[in-house]
């Protein structure tokens, strides 16, 4: 849809959308009921000189009802949110690919392990603003920043995490569809914040491996 959530392409993206829709239904119903009641009161109880206003100060039963019911609703939402949060932000599942993303004003430095299979060594494969991901595999992203705070936002993956100088953050994702997507910087990072854009390519594991090999070969020559 045009002005709606873009189609989710990560394993937990669908679950986030489901939670979003649950909250939308609950708040939507409350919204309609409350606005309806407000309008109804304003019309039904508009000034009529023949009918004086009622005189009462409260009703304990009613007040208990509208304390307990919202408490149950938000309790449920907190519980549902916590389960999904623990899944997304808790210890990551075993990963097949590890990526380093180091943000700087105003670019994303992406690095993959080189032939030694370890990240953060001189033989790393590095790109600027090009994040390639194999579809279906769990990817662990080591997120850091060189200068100020940036935010690593992949809208279609329902993933966002600040890249903080001095801290290496770890987030994971598992793409469910191939295609081309964008990295958005979501935290104000200076005058070029608006153009701090990266590109995500999700491809088959074979194509991904071929791309890695090709880049490594290009780097050695």
């Amino acid at each position, binding site marked *: 849809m045009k002005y*709606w959530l873009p189609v989710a392409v990560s394993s937990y993206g669908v679950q986030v959308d489901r939670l979003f829709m649950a909250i939308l239904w609950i708040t939507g119903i409350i919204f309609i009921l409350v606005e309806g009641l407000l309008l109804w009161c304003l019309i039904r*109880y508009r000034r009529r000189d023949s009918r004086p206003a*009622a005189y009462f100060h409260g009703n304990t039963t009613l007040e208990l009802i509208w304390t307990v019911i919202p408490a149950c609703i938000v309790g449920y939402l907190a519980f549902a*949110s916590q389960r999904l949060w623990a899944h997304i932000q808790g210890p990551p599942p075993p990963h097949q690919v590890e990526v380093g993303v180091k943000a700087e*004003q105003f670019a994303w430095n992406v690095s993959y392990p080189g032939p030694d299979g370890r990240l953060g060594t001189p033989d790393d494969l590095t790109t600027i603003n090009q994040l390639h991901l194999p579809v279906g595999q769990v990817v662990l992203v080591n997120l850091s920043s060189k*200068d100020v*705070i940036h935010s690593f936002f992949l809208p279609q993956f329902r993933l966002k995490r600040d890249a903080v100088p001095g801290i290496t953050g770890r987030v994971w994702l598992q793409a469910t569809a191939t295609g081309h997507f964008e990295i958005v910087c979501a935290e104000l990072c*200076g005058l070029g914040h608006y*153009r701090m854009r990266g590109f995500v390519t999700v491809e088959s594991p074979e194509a991904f491996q071929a791309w890695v090999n090709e880049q490594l070969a290009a780097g050695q020559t």
Partner: protein
Amino acid sequence: MTETHSRPGFVRRYIFSTDHKIIGIQFLFTSLTMLLVGGLLAMLIRWQLGWPGHALGFMGTLAPNGMPGGVMVPEYYNMLFTMHGSIMIFFGIIPILVGAFGNYLIPLKIGAPDMAFPRLNMASYWLVPPAIAVMLSGFFMEGGAASAGWTSYAPLSITLGPGQTCWIVAVLLVGTSSILGAINYIATIINLRAPGMSFFRMPMSIWALFITAIVTLLATPVLASAVILLLLDRTLGTMFFLPAGMVVDGVAWTQAGGQVIMWQHLFWFYSHPAVYIMILPVFGIVSDILPNFARKPLFGYHSMVYATSTIAVLGFLVWAHHMFVSGMNPALGTSFMVATMVIAVPTGVKFFNWLATLWGGSIRLTTPMVHACIFLATFLIGGLTGIFLGSMPVDIYAHDTYFVVGHLHYVLFGGSLFGAFAGITYWFPKMFGRMMSERWGKIHAVLTFVFFNAVMFPMFFLGLAGMPRRIYDYTQYAHLAHVGGLNRMMSVSAFILFTAQAIFVVNFFWSLFKGKPAGDNPWQSTTLEWTTASPPPHGNFATIPTVHHGPYEYSVPGRATDWLPQSSPS
């Protein structure tokens, strides 16, 4: 207090006055002016968002550095939203709700001749104009005004130019003003209530201002210390918020050892309670206005007091819900989410109590009442969208998108500003002795309501489409290629919204001089401020009133009139 009863000269009476009413009106005019300034900045923001990169000819002359040839540069855009947010919050909403209504209403509504500390009160106002001057002077600094957002996140705010220092000094000044005001309100409410005015006979507006003052007193010093630390990092080479190994623009910073996220914790420890500083007074104002125009007692007065107190306490336990994706320990998020969700409960109680106040009433749709009802309708949206952001998994997506911008404008415009309009139109007759035009008041209210929604509601859809906030040119992104049309519609609505405020300004000043004389009690209200003259004389009351009743005794059965003043002996 006693010495103020002699009649001072013009300067002492209207400029360096210690009379709480004059100080309240000074806050009112100052904050209304700043709302206008903040609104103008918003118009420039909307220009860039509606027509990215298009020239706005006359701005090329007015701001040759920011908009050379009328075309906005990204740095200027960053300054605009930073200053828009800072001005609206620190010099618009907080001073109008706390400064203007707090000063004007507290002594009048509790039956006191003035504040407990009139000179402290004068000082709290006179810190504001210098703060404004310092904040705005940023525009004339090298590199321009502050541009790190109103949140001023370190380390970006440390790396930027001297405009950022102006921001810090201005916030420090206005924070000091808030602290002085809060001390005064608390002392006044505790000590100067008229005989018979027990705590549980105080109008909700006074309860709300009392609780707001306590929140201000506990939270603002934290902001003050945080900005002092930021200032030291910027100027004296300390490293509270600077981590090791920072390389900015190719230059390695030697300062090291600080914690970047610490700034956010300190900032939000103030700034989340500040949200309640900006909304609790409105809860109080609306709780005064709804019973009056429904001619019915406030439903659940005691539970309103407890709900307001609960919100204030919980407001101190939720600050890190602004930081779910900041990189703080994810396990920490859970406790903040639970506290955030729990706030919905007392807020819900207040909402249902307001609706139950209308239920069975005899409703008069005057201008203040229309604003109060618009507040109910729009603040509800602000509250409900907060539940999306409170749910951590959804916040991962919605955080720092236009969804948040929509949410905060429904809270601060839909909530705070409509509440302020309700309060101004309600107490204008008391402040100036004349009625505002009802017809133009309602036209203004309806136009503002319609175009406010036309600007702000689409923000939720932009947020869902993945449009980040604080973005100079969204056309950079492929996934935002299609949002231009909606943005242009919002910009046009924003221009109409801004223009419609002229109706309010004209109505305000026309009524000031030509309005129908109001008399003591034009709304047939029960509370003490309506028992004295409009405007009240120096010292407020000819004799200090004695209070016999609660604040909302409307339509008491068996009485000739449908309101029973608090000071009525029978």
